[in-house]
């Protein structure tokens, strides 16, 4: 069966939807716009389903399609092409499913927004860019998608651009991502320089050769080329996947509409960094240093960013920090070469995190755009569907046994535990503590929001009520995979071989294959694994987290006031978010600003404007005036000049001058 038409259709349908909703939105009206966008997205979704079916059940071979030559400059060929393999199909599936549900959800959530069609257009455009990113068969096309999702993310964070905080958040997201993209671009440039091609196939074919190359820096420091490339690529991934220290934009991105937070800043775009690392696994597997960097950065983020979630009060920001923490888990898995586990967690996380965000959106709708959890409480009775689904999402997030999060997260922690690479123990400790922290902040949020007594002004006329069906339907639809996905698919996805279901797509360092074999041999079926949970450390850390939250926030809130002083060192550090923001503001932003002011005043105004631009113009004007004076109008003078010029020419020729 030819997969190409489906892939092309899946790509073009969201683009068409975006164009129709964007340019024809005013003409079509609200209903037609969202129907078109959703309908076309459904087409893309069905194409993805077909592709996945072919890959999963029919074991169709990967498709590497070279479309057409887009640009040729000397030896540089940039092509438009598609690579449809297991990894990209899994990503396509996730992107289209979440996007479809979020589209539907948005009908309800964005109901009153005047820029309704624009919103749908942006979302479809995002889907298109994300699909380009995951289906590209060369890094330039990946970069195109990468920048495309970055652009749409910027547009959507600043969707309510009249709100200063939204505009600022959009700026921040854009600028911080530039830092990461710079690293990514440098990595691509190195690849182009050394491999001479930007397509995956030749790059991976030469991965072994790249692994043996060294670059000599100043003073003869030799650096392994592959480590350099991978770390540069990982800097890009850090920007996009909000890893420390380039995570600062993600909390600010919560200024965007909540469906966007679910779609872009939880389920899909932020996982692009993980996708990049997994996609580039042949390169990363050549560099233990790069793997360790990925592992350590990921694990550190998983713990430290989760901790910040403890002191946040904005419902969306808590979930945002949780997202960063979970992305840290995925990165750690990729660092431990458990690529299938990383992708598996990516998928299950996409479901339950989208569920949590959309649930939070439902709460926010009910609370009339109140996002502070200290002003909620007791919503359980008002929002029953939201309550149930949110509970399912929370359980999945904290990795309680039968829920999907348990299987993915447990696999990651176990893999990191076994991983014989530098930083493995540190990462294991971080991830274990992370499990506790995750449970703590998740259930703090949950209890404060849905249990206890209402802390908002109860207005009899405007009691919080359940959202319309377009809002709760996606919640229910997302709750299903949040429960079942792990239990159904974990065995086939992770525990079939060291590479997992991804198989040939990823490449694991031979030295690490043994540990991975050990790791999968410990798995004896789904049900045993579920039952085994009680004998494992992460489970008890999680339970401890939940209990702590239950005691501190529900049973005896007075304990909080007694033992946790609001201005103790730890909470101050956490509240300051480890000082990243203030560091950025005071050192980087202000430094760059003063530097640019310096350049503006001295370089631009003095040197360029006064010196070169206006200066040369003045000089030429003076020259012109002078030449005008030469033109005296006296005939004898003209004759003299002519004769003089003649004589000078003669004398020059003779060599007298």
């Amino acid at each position, binding site marked *: 069966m030819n997969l190409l038409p489906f892939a092309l259709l899946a790509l073009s349908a969201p683009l068409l939807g975006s164009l129709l909703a964007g340019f024809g939105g005013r003409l079509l009206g609200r209903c037609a716009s969202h129907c078109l966008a959703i309908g076309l997205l459904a087409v893309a979704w069905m194409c993805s389903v077909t592709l996945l079916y072919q890959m999963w059940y029919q074991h169709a071979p990967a498709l590497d399609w070279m479309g057409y030559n887009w640009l040729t400059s000397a030896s540089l060929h940039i092509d438009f092409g598609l690579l449809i393999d297991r990894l990209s199909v899994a990503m396509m599936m996730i992107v289209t499913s979440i996007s479809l549900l979020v589209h539907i959800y948005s009908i309800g959530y964005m109901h009153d927004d005047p820029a309704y069609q624009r919103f749908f257009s942006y979302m479809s455009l995002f889907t298109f860019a994300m699909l380009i990113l995951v289906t590209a068969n060369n890094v330039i096309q990946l970069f195109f998608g990468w920048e495309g999702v970055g652009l749409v993310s910027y547009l959507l964070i600043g969707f309510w651009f009249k709100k200063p905080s939204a505009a600022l958040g959009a700026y921040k997201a854009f600028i911080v991502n530039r830092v990461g993209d710079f690293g990514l671009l440098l990595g691509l440039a190195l690849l182009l320089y050394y491999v001479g091609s930007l397509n995956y196939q030749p790059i991976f074919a030469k991965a072994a050769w790249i692994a043996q190359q060294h670059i000599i820096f100043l003073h003869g420091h030799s650096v392994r080329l592959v480590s350099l490339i991978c770390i540069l690529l990982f800097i890009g991934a850090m920007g996009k996947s909000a890893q420390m220290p380039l995570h600062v934009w993600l909390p600010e991105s919560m200024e965007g509409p909540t469906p966007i937070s679910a779609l872009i800043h939880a389920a899909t775009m932020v996982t692009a960094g993980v996708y990049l690392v997994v996609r580039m696994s042949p390169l990363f597997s050549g560099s233990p240093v790069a793997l360790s960097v990925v592992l350590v950065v990921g694990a550190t983020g998983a713990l430290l960013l989760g901790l910040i979630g403890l002191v946040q009060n904005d419902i969306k920001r808590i979930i945002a920090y949780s997202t960063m923490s979970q992305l840290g888990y995925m990165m750690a898995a990729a660092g431990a070469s458990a690529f299938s586990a990383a992708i598996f967690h990516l998928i299950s996380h996409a479901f339950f995190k989208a569920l949590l965000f959309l649930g939070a959106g439902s709460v926010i709708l009910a609370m009339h755009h109140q996002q502070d959890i200290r002003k909620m409480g007791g919503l359980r009775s008002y929002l029953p569907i939201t309550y149930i689904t949110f509970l399912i999402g929370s359980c999945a997030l904290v990795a309680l046994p039968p829920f999907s999060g348990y299987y993915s997260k447990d696999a990651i922690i176990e893999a990191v535990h076994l991983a014989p690479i530098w930083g493995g123990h540190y990462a294991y400790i971080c991830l274990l503590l992370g499990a506790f922290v995750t449970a703590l902040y998740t259930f703090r949020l949950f209890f404060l929001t849905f249990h206890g007594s209402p802390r908002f002004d109860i207005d009899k006329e405007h009691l919080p009520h359940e959202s319309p069906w377009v809002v709760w339907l996606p919640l229910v639809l997302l709750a299903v995979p949040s429960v079942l996905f792990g239990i159904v698919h974990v065995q086939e996805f992770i525990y079939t071989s060291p590479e997992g279901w991804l198989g040939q797509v990823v490449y694991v360092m031979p030295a690490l294959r043994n540990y991975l074999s050990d790791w999968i041999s410990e798995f004896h079926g789904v049900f045993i694994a579920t039952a085994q949970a009680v004998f494992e450390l992460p489970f008890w850390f999680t339970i401890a987290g939940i209990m702590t939250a239950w005691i501190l926030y529900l049973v005896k809130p007075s304990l909080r006031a007694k033992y946790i002083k609001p201005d103790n060192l730890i909470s101050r550090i956490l509240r300051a978010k480890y000082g990243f923001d203030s560091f950025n503001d005071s050192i980087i932003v202000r430094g760059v600003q003063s530097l640019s002011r310096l350049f503006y005043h001295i370089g631009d105004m003095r040197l360029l404007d006064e010196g070169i631009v206006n200066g040369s113009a003045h000089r030429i004007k003076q020259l012109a005036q002078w030449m005008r004076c030469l033109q005296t109008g006296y005939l*004898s*003078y003209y004759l*003299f000049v002519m*004769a*003089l010029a003649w*004589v000078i020419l*003669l*004398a020059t020729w*003779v060599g007298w001058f």
Partner: protein
Amino acid sequence: MISLLDCFFYSISSMLVASSLAVILVRHPVRAALFLVLSFVMAAMLWMLLEAEFLSLVLIFVYVGAIMTLFLFVIMMLPAEESLSWKKWRGFPFALLLFALLLSLLFYMLKHSLLLGASASPADTTSTYTNTQAIGHILYTQYALPFEMIGILLLVAMVAAIMLTFRGRRVDAKGQCINKQVRASKQDQLKLVNIPSEGEKG
């Protein structure tokens, strides 16, 4: 060894240079014109020395006999007091410098260039040879085309001169009207008047 021809050449050419200088240095325009006549004569003599007797005589006929005479008429008709004085031209030193430079360049050129044997004297120097005939022959055969063109050129010069000086017919200008003259009859021109003679009166 200086031959007689050299003596003639140097004396004539020094007079040519002197009279040419006088043309531009003398204040009175009539005298300047007369010096120009002198320099034409000297140039004609130089050509005579080169056995180019036709050109030499044409120079005297045309320039001295016709053009310079016209010049003198014009100059004499102008109020000629100070009109030609060059007063104190500030650029004079520069001009002098330029002149010196040019002169030295020309000397340098003549000193350093070998003539490529083409400037030989006419081949046929027998007594039957006249360069009047030779010039006439070449003008009407080989150079007929440029010769005709020069005719057109002179026509253009004439037309241009007329155009520039002709300021329209004046109302009181005197002129002939041939038609009128031809058509004139005795009746129009002649009127017979009967005047009684003295005798009849008496």
